[in-house]
């Protein structure tokens, strides 16, 4: 897209570090944050990922100054900002719901912050026009929010959030109200804009694919706590806990027996990862790791296949009734129709194990 070549004359000289320290917040009986510790590096794009209700929005709102912790602190560049009111936090925010001011057109929406600062009209308008160009809506300046599509509104909200050159950019599921196609293009644009400006960014989402595809690092939250914070590849390849493993990407659980750091699964003995006591465990296996081949003597059988483009996802049922998913290249999957007897195996690599869940 051509409009992405436009740059702001001044990018940020120095990006900010953000630190959450032992944040705790209760709403009546619900514990929204239960001692959240997290550090966002300068200029980093960090995705806050987790199931709905795990406290992502609450954490973000604490950084924005809309919510106050019962205990703990929020630090920006090492400075405690917990007591600083929202309008002095220097944080630009894009909301999940459409949040443009309905009575102002696009230019005035973007220029709102500058007006609050008392910037002169001419300067305000030129800066707003610049930002509209940055988000590719230079020609929509005179439109009112109700005359714009959802995607356009969120772009303008992004421009508005960037207008004051904030030290951090906060995005609370900005794409969740948009349709799939707009969501894809807009998330790429947000990423490119962020890299261009080098601004420290917190991006809240419950969509793991979204988080993995745009972020430098992904912080997975669960029930108000940080579960793991790592680069997308590490998060996917070496999940620290069973929760992360199953929340990020697809995982099958295969029953096994743990003994002396090795696990017996699918008739193989493999090194085990994960801290669980010896005994019956589940081995967590990604679909692309599991090997499936037609085998007359095999004890497993194919239950279903789904064509996903480059790969075919084959669901197999093992002898004990457990179902597992495997991704096979399309040419390997020919002939694996439902009911075919197959052999299932794992490569000679360490597998992640977790305490067995009763099914």
């Amino acid at each position: 897209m051509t409009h992405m070549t436009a740059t702001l004359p001044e990018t940020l000289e120095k990006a900010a570090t953000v630190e959450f320290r032992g944040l705790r917040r209760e709403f009546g009986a619900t514990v929204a944050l239960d001692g959240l510790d997290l550090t966002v590096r300068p200029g980093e794009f960090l995705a806050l990922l987790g199931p709905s209700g795990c406290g992502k929005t609450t954490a973000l709102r604490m950084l924005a100054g809309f919510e106050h912790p019962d205990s703990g602190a929020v630090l920006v560049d090492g400075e405690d900002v917990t007591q600083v009111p929202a309008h002095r936090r220097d944080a630009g925010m894009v909301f999940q719901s459409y949040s443009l001011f309905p009575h102002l057109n696009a230019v005035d929406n973007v220029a709102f912050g500058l007006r609050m600062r008392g910037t002169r009209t001419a300067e305000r308008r030129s800066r707003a026009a610049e930002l509209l160009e940055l988000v590719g809506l230079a020609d929509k300046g005179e439109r009112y929010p109700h005359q714009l599509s959802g995607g356009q509104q969120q772009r303008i909200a992004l421009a508005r959030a960037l207008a004051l050159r904030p030290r951090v950019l906060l995005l609370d599921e900005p794409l969740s109200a948009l349709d799939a196609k707009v969501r894809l293009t807009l998330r790429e644009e947000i990423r490119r804009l962020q890299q261009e400006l080098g601004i420290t960014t917190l991006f809240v989402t419950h969509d793991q694919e979204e988080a993995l595809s745009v972020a430098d690092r992904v912080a997975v939250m669960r029930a108000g706590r940080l579960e793991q914070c790592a680069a997308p590849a590490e998060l996917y390849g070496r999940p620290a806990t069973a929760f992360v493993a199953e929340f990020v990407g697809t995982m099958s659980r295969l029953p096994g027996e743990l003994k002396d750091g090795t696990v017996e699964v699918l008739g193989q003995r493999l090194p085990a990862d994960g801290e669980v006591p010896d005994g019956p465990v589940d081995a967590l296996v990604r679909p692309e790791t599991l090997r499936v081949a037609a085998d007359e003597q095999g004890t497993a059988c194919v239950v279903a296949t789904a064509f996903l483009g480059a790969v075919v996802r084959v669901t197999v049922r093992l002898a004990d009734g457990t179902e597992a998913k495997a991704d096979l290249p399309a040419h390997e999957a020919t002939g694996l129709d439902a009911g075919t007897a197959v052999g299932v195996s794992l490569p000679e690599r360490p597998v992640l194990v977790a305490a067995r869940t009763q099914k």
Partner: protein
Amino acid sequence: MARRLTPWRWVVLGLAALYFLVPLVASVIFTVDAPGQGVTFDAYTKILSTGGFVSSLLLSLELAVATIAVVLLLMVPAVVALRLGAPRLRPVVEVVCSLPLVVPPIAFVAGIVTVLKWGPEHLSRTPLFETFVVIQNQDFPLVLVLAYVVMALPFVYRALDAGLRAIDVRTLVEAARSCGASWPQALLQAVLPNLRGALLNASFLTLALVLGEFTVSHLLGYAPFAVWIYNVGGEQAQMSVAVSVLSLLVTWALLLALAGAGGRTRSASSRG
């Protein structure tokens, strides 16, 4: 399906129009038709020359403006705070604001009279005595403004509540705050402009209420427009009807003016 109903709509509309227009037209005919002389506007010219027309109308307008100002200053921050801070209190406030509808004006005014009598007797040696004197000033009876504020509460609350329902106040305030707006700035620049319609409605209803209010002002011994009409009308039948027609037109004109002013600024600054 809607099309099939169209004849019925016209019938209903026609009946409603008849219901409103027949008495009105009859009144107008009655006022301009002097027996044996044809059409004459004597009744209307006489009104203007009767003492008190302008002053009572002005008094009513002043009371209306003061009431609108007070009730909006009181209610707008209250309903916004209610929405942001304590949504669970809403039913309570709704009931409290509806009470004036339940209490008949006659009971209301009886209460006011009692307080006005009791106050000066017991407070004659305190500064509050002055307060009682001031609010009963004949030129501008503040006590009427206070009474009207209470009487306007149900309408104003409902109008503002409907307006707030249509916008996401919390998100607007937070968006403004993250753009560097302080609390008052966020309210004035992000919320109020989007409540324009509701504010206009509330003002409308209050204006109509104050212009037509009779019981309280009459019983307290003041003579705003409605009381003046009553006093004048008692003297001559034709003129009393002419006065009612005129008061109807005056109220309409004011409401239209208010709507026009609101509509124009609205379309100038926003099309939404």
